[in-house]
């Protein structure tokens, strides 16, 4: 409640400043990862595709198994991330099957998340440790986050009458108990490890330096799409793994700067309203004068 009231006060102040023509605070634009940012580092050369992480994830998050692809209902075998799978191990193999790689998909916890830019009431938002978390109380189920996310991560409970958005929240309920995320805890090969983002980045660069030729010499997520808190090391080109080339500018920046450009301080709409009123008032008095002339 205290937070809500403070937020309310802040909104009033921002709105007041905006109405006065001041530049609104660009609070939501993060150039850098938050100081307490945590994340995951996944290494394709270590993963053996055992999918233990998927099972542990469902257990830790109380998600039912997705047996859609298993007629005998024996396997948790989601085709992709969905409302019953917050993480999925995928396999990439090229045409002749010579180059192969596993890929672990889950929320990237972007430094500047497009889903949070989209979300009307801030249901999806970067909260503690820079984790993008979900608050169903503030969600109307519009699914604009699904449109916005360049990694196609947020998923919707299509078969529920009271659906929620489902996505990895980096096991923040486990972090609160002093534990690490389920996926990294159970990984038998330490292919996915948990830690502070800055430490993970250092570790990734150390591995690249230590074994030249083993990796594509790039840490995906360091700057991609403005940077993510989940980082990848790979021996195959990243686009094969479904990690798109996004450039260094945060994805939501263009749409957001356009929106802010038009609505800066709400000045343009107010000015337009004034001009419209003025023109109509002038037109109306001119029409009244015409009528008076006619009457004479």
């Amino acid at each position, binding site marked *: 409640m205290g937070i*809500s*009231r403070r*937020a*309310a*006060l*802040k909104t009033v102040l*921002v709105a007041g400043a905006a109405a006065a023509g001041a530049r*609104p605070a660009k609070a939501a634009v993060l150039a850098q990862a938050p100081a307490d940012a945590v994340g995951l580092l996944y290494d394709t050369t270590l993963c053996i595709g055992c999918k233990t992480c998927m099972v542990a994830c469902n257990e830790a998050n109380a998600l039912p198994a997705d047996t859609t692809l298993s007629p005998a209902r024996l396997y948790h075998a989601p085709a*992709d*991330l969905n409302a019953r799978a917050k993480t999925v191990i995928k396999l990439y193999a090229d045409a002749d099957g010579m180059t192969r790689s596993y890929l672990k998909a889950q929320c990237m916890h972007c430094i500047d998340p497009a889903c*949070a*830019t*989209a*979300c*009307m*009431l*801030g249901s999806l938002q970067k909260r503690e440790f820079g984790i993008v978390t979900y608050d*169903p109380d*503030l*969600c*109307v*189920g*519009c*699914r*604009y986050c*699904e*449109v*916005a996310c360049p990694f*196609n991560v947020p998923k*919707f*409970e*299509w*078969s*529920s*009458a*009271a*659906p*929620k958005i489902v996505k990895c929240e980096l096991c923040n309920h486990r972090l609160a108990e002093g534990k690490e995320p389920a996926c990294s805890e159970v990984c038998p090969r330490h292919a996915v490890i948990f830690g502070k983002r800055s430490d993970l980045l250092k570790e990734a660069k150390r591995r690249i330096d230590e074994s030249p030729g083993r990796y594509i010499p790039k840490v995906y997520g360091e700057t991609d799409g403005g940077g993510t808190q989940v980082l990848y090391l790979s021996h195959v080109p990243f686009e094969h793994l479904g990690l*798109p080339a*996004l450039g260094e500018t945060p*994805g*939501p920046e*263009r*749409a*957001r700067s*356009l*929106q*802010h450009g*038009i*609505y800066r301080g709400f000045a343009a*709409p107010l000015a*337009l*309203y004034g001009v419209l*009123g003025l*023109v*109509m*008032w002038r*037109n109306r008095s*001119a*029409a009244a004068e015409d009528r008076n002339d006619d009457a004479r």
Partner: protein
Amino acid sequence: MTTRAEPMGGSLDTTATRALAGLLGLGAVLIVWRLIVGLGPTTALNDGYPLGLWIAFDVVTGTAVACGGYAVAILVYILNKGRYHPLVRPALLTSALGYSLAGFSVVIDIGRWWNVWKVPVYFWHWNFNSALLEVALCIMAYVFVLWIELSPAFFERWQDSSFVALRRMSRAALPMLKKASLFIIALGLLLPTMHQSSLGTLMLLAGPRLHPLWNTPWLPLLFLISCVSMGYAGVVFESTLSSRLFGRRSDTAMLAALAAAIVPLQIAFVVLRLGDLAWQGRLGLLFAGDGRSVLAALEYVLFLAPVVMLSSAERRRDPGQLFRAALAMIFAGALFRFDTYLVAFTPGPQWAYFPSVPELLITVGLVAGEILAYILIVKMFPVLAKEQVA
């Protein structure tokens, strides 16, 4: 000015109204089913295509055709063409009904509809980065403004009602509305300018997943331009049909004069879009020969068709030609909007979307309900002008 809006009268119980009520009833049953079992079993929506027919048609296209009130108000109040005033009230009615339908469709479409009241109320949670928040607040406000703008039509009828309370309220409200009209009309011009452009900004957030033929920072302006021509075309459509239906003299003379102001908009749209494609070095994509390039090319053809069809004053005064040109305008804008929201959105090859039968029938039911409401209201309340000045 010798025109006066009058109720059209006539029976409310006709074959047409019964058929429309039947379609509405079917839609209503399906809506209840959707609310009970959720969106998965009733729609073709999925995690790749989370927005579908209800958003692309009912909201994004429907509100544009419902911009008649906006388009006509610009011409009448801002460009000072007061003699076209008889067009305002029917245009406002189609706008009010179209926007109400859009708002209702959103409530069916969103998963957690019981939370929707929080959007206007929880102002301390407002995310000013969200183009959708702007659209949502603006459309909610505009539905309200439209019904207020239209309310004199109801109060004029009720001021002679036999119910004392209704009569008193109407007689008190009418002079108040007249005094406030300038502020209300200006609001009715501001709000569509804001949310129709934001409907363009909205899809820009899809970023790399929006196909380059539609991915331009000019989307807000393109959406704004297209809503004016679609709104105007909607008025032509509605006026032509209502003159047939109720045996009124048609408004062709007025509509033809307004067409001269709309044709340049169609040209501006095409020049702006092609210019931007050329500037970004993407013109070649138009000739890629794939489905998306064909649809994009078709948009340009449809946008330019009315320019040719209405090239001379003589052609503009031909009611048939005007009607056909209006249809082309509606199809042009509708295709542009459908493409931007569905075709240009590329979540990946593993995803596909085509609306399910219940999805289609719910939309059909809602549109039937809109037409039914239009017929009932113009029969009972003074909306349409019976005698026209040529």
